[in-house]
């Protein structure tokens, strides 16, 4: 038999190797699943992971990589701060939706004005909306001790219903022939978030994602706040002796991750999505949780994990078109990936020894 011996610190080799192992295991088991469903497993894996970048239609799908990775990375970089400190914001999806609604509200209120300040004001409103939605669980935890996990998650469902209400009610496009959904911001230039470099897929959301990664890297590795966050996560009692005030950390982590998720929503509604619809929330907020873990809560890892997850989204759509694979394949892949990652993580935290 084997026994597990806790490691004093996680070796870098295993920290890097486990996400890669998890991806490989997902491909193998996923391939088996495809085979069981009667698809050619190799063709399916190639369509999902290779063709979007190098396949025949790559010219179209490559820019989509940044379009999809942008919001994932932006949200995940904020979530990683809290996860490090043991503060679980799992309601990023709700903060994303509210950020989009607040940002769109500014644009729709200004319509059809043509002014330079509209887009910057939308950015502020988007961040503020997401921040406020994240501060609700933070304050309820600080004041009353309510679980931020459950409150932030409940608020996702509330936010989804607000989006539906907006699409059918206050934000409905008056010139939309009575169809639900707001005006399309892509057609309202002062409020739109266009591609910055043609065919790159890069819009302001991608730029914000890079800035967020740089900022979180700085905070986590160069600022005393990062030390506080890491200590609070690793040893809450020790953190108190080191002068960490848990309440402030809760407010900070939930607020910042909320604001970043709100920004992601704003850039999405002003850019690729274009409008507030009933189903505006598309699951980025939940997938970003996987991105944060897959990237080991480290900025560089999050960048790579975000790109990989974006790849599975595009590859999944491609596989749906080319091979008739079910649309939910990607979700299954993402869930499986997180399982494998959490399982393999054992290797970073424990040494496996032969029992004498």
């Amino acid at each position: 038999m084997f026994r597990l011996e806790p490691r004093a610190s996680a070796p870098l080799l295993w920290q890097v190797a486990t996400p890669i192992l998890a991806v490989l295991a997902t491909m193998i088991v996923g391939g088996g699943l495809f085979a069981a469903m009667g698809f050619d497993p190799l063709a399916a894996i190639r369509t999902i992971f290779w063709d979007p970048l190098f396949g025949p239609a790559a010219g179209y799908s490559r820019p989509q990589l940044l379009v999809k990775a942008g919001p994932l990375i932006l949200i995940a970089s904020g979530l990683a701060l809290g996860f490090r400190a043991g503060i679980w914001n799992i309601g990023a999806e709700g903060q994303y939706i509210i950020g989009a609604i607040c940002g769109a509200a500014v644009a729709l209120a200004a319509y059809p004005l043509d002014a330079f300040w509209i887009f910057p004001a939308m950015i502020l409103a988007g961040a503020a909306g997401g921040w406020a939605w994240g501060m609700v669980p933070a304050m309820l935890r600080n004041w009353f001790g309510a679980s931020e996990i459950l409150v932030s998650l409940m608020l996702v469902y509330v936010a989804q219903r607000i989006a539906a209400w907006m699409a059918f009610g206050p934000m409905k496009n008056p010139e939309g022939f009575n169809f639900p959904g707001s005006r399309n911001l892509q057609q309202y230039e002062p409020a739109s978030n266009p591609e910055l470099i043609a065919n790159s897929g890069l819009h302001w959301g991608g730029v914000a994602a890079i800035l967020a990664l740089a900022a979180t890297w700085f905070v986590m590795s160069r600022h005393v706040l990062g030390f506080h966050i890491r200590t609070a996560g690793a040893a809450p009692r020790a953190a108190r002796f080191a002068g960490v005030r848990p309440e402030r950390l809760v407010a900070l982590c939930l607020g910042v991750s909320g604001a970043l998720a709100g920004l992601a929503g704003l850039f999405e509604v002003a850019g690729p999505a274009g409008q507030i619809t009933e189903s505006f929330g598309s699951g980025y907020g939940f997938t970003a949780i996987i991105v944060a873990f897959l990237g080991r809560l480290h900025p560089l890892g999050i960048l790579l994990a975000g790109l990989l997850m974006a790849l599975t989204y595009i590859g999944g759509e491609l596989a749906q078109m080319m091979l008739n694979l079910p649309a939910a394949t990607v979700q299954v892949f993402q869930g499986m990936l997180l399982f494998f990652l959490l399982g393999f993580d054992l290797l970073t935290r424990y040494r496996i020894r032969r029992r004498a």
Partner: protein
Amino acid sequence: MMIDPLSVFILLLGAATPILFAALGELVVERAGVLNLGVEGMMITGALAGFAAAHASGSPALGFLAAALAGAAVSMTFAALTQFLLSNQVATGLALTLFGLGLTAMFGKPYEGMKAPAMMPGPLGLNWMIWLGIALVPLVWWFLARTRPGLILRAVGENHDAAHGLGYPVRRMRVLAIGFGGALAGMGGAYISIATVLQWTEGMTAGAGWIALAIVVFAQWNPWGVLAGAWLFGGVTVLQLRLQAAGVAVPVQLLSMAPYLATIFVLVLISARQKFGRSGAGAAPASLGRPFHALK
């Protein structure tokens, strides 16, 4: 606008049943010191498996049996990861939810648009699952409070190191509890597809699993409290649906927020009571969510 109290109460019992099953299961899991956030994933798995089995066999009872098995089966991935590979329980539970939602979306497509077989009516015009749910409350209470395995389960949940030191099988107890929680969550989910909505739609549990998790906190880890919480939730749901049907001048989308807001409200209320109350009663099991690793 007329709202007849008796008919509301009957509807309430139905609306409360999925939450009652799932929350009772999760209560046992948490009393064993394990926090499984995958309730939503296990419920949706049960909703699909139960619907598929009921549709294929024409028997709702077989459907619920299949749902219990499917819920327990997916809960074993959580058990393997958290109990043997010592993974983080919050992250693993979340993974279970995401995985369950994806898996059912993938395999559920062919079942969309099909009808569920009719439920057998039970005593007083309520179906048997409603009665089973209510009967489970005293059973779970009796098991936890009055039996030896129940005592061991609670010991494991309060202090796993001491329980291990006394020679109790911490891991086995927890795996069994997780399986039981999975089975009940699966049955709760199947109640939504077989008895409430009467068909399968993607993501149909709509947060019921998360509400069940909140109900366990609200109940302060007491089975009778779970019954009260589930009924409270059922009441809010039914009232909200009645108001929709009556055509109140509030948009439908806003009315349908009520269950989620009510959940936050009771969560805050009970958390505040625990925080500011003087007695330590009703606190979470002391080892809740902490991984157990015996060095010997």
